[in-house]
């Protein structure tokens, strides 16, 4: 049994236009997945099916074998946590601590457990010291980290993060990357909706490309970044380093290099393999 099983799902927001056109997808425990594609293509609509925020117009979504239509959304939220793109759609407490404590408290956990989880989540996202701060006094990057903490305290099995790196600088991006890594190491499945391909290359193992309400590609990150035509059709560019590797494939560079380190190793390997040949200095 898959953790999440999306079976031929169609969805319409009430007009005649279908936002999802027969999507099927299985998500297993301990995966890291990026939902990518242009805005308006159906990524967020698909992600909101995972925890019953939206219910299929046709088809069904099973979470641990149970249809999302058969369980109230607040119970599903204990299994599949959803972090909205815009923090102000999610934050409603006047203190960081209360915001993070809300989920476990609402789930009826014992006070000591609520406190332990709140403390843990705040620490994990690096907001220790801000417990009594008003969420809107945090900068945008920290506010986004707070919204992740407020889902972590529920300890869901699946995290859905909508655009977690938007508005984050280098340090914020790195913190989100480390967070996803540690949640995944601890056994959670993490799904990110993102336009940040460099982030995807560094953090995520599987890509699901959504366009016009359909899944147009689904596979290992490295494999999907190889499908340059499919990506171009969805107006997505792989990371700069992958584009460089593609362009240099004719010189012998591994075209599937996804990070600076990989590309450097590939090029350095080529050079050391050809010692004795003279190197021209540019």
């Amino acid at each position, binding site marked *: 049994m898959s953790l999440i099983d999306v079976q031929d799902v169609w969805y319409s927001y009430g007009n005649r236009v279908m936002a999802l056109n027969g999507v099927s997808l299985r998500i297993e425990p301990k995966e890291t997945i990026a939902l990518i594609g*242009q*805005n*308006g293509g159906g990524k967020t609509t698909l992600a909101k099916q995972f925890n019953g925020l939206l219910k299929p117009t046709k088809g069904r979504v099973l979470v641990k074998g149970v249809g999302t239509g058969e369980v109230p959304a607040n119970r599903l939220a204990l299994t599949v946590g959803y972090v909205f793109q815009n923090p102000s759609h999610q934050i409603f407490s006047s203190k960081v601590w209360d915001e993070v404590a809300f989920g476990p408290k609402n789930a009826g956990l014992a006070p000591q457990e609520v406190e332990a989880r709140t403390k843990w989540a705040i620490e994990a996202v690096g907001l220790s010291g801000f417990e009594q701060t008003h969420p809107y006094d945090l*900068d*945008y*990057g920290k506010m986004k980290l707070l919204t992740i903490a407020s889902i972590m305290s529920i300890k869901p099995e699946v995290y859905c993060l909508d655009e977690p790196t*938007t*508005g*984050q*600088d*280098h*340090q*914020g*991006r790195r913190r989100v990357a480390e967070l996803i890594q540690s949640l995944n190491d601890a056994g959670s499945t993490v799904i990110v909706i993102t*336009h940040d391909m*460099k982030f995807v290359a560094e953090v995520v193992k599987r890509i699901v490309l959504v366009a016009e309400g359909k899944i147009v590609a689904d596979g290992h990150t490295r494999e999907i970044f190889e499908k340059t035509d499919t990506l171009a059709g969805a*107006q*997505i*560019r792989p*990371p*700069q*380093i992958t*584009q*460089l590797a593609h*362009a*240099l494939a004719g*010189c*012998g*560079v591994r075209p599937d290099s996804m990070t*600076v*380190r990989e*590309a*450097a190793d590939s*090029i*350095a390997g*080529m*050079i*050391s393999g*050809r010692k004795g*040949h003279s*190197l*021209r*200095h*540019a």
Partner: protein
Amino acid sequence: MPTDDASVRVEGLIYGYPGHAPILHDINMKVMKGEMFGIIGPNGAGKSTLCKALNGLVPHFYGGTYGGSVIVSGMDAMKHTVAELSLRVGLVFQEPTNQFSGVSTRVDEEVAFGMSMMGFDRHEMSSRITDALKQVGLEGLEDRSPYELSGGQQQRLAIATVLAVRPEVIVMDEPTAQLDPVGKTEVLETMHALNKEGYTIIVAEHEIEELATFADRIMALNEGRIMMEGSTRGVLTQIDQLRKMGVDPPSVTELSHLLADKTALRPEKYPITLEEAIALYRDLLGETLR
């Protein structure tokens, strides 16, 4: 007043929001007419505040402690109102909907709104609306609601509302941060085209790899101070300094430095764009394999 070709001249600018310690310290910058000038730095570095100081919102709207001088298009920001300054310098915000008046139901009305506040006559307004929408590639969408446009279109509309006034300088505060890749490309191309038309453009931007392709000069801010300033190549190839202040250099620049450490591939000129890197390594590696 200096009579050189500077569009913007900032000298010894110090600024703090009311009740707060200074967020900008001793900022000196000069941006020439027609230049594309990038401002980079981590969140909280003071980029947005500096943008607001260029059109007078700092200090006129926010108050606070202010020292030094900001001269934009020959006008001292301290001595002129935001309305007067807005004829010469337009500010585009990160979130386009923050720029919209909220009362216009049509794209063309939105462009007209700012001008009508400034007392332009109807005939003049109409020709300026046509021109501005054309410049940002929104012609044909005059009767659409600003709120049913895509993110990239909304940001281009925000640019059009500023353009219609025909300022000399356009300042943009992370104009692509909230956009998807298509929207980002639309806005960056618009920015580039306007610069080619002669507008002086100052842009705070996180997209370093994009900035590398079109900025003439870059200034790096950290904790309210200028850390680096110079040609785009000069700044973006200082990868250790960039990393230290929490900014990711372009991937190709990182690669070329890493290879220079590991191998004998030491270019005379480190690449900052994809195109440069492709040309460089095709040359170097092609030679190696021969």
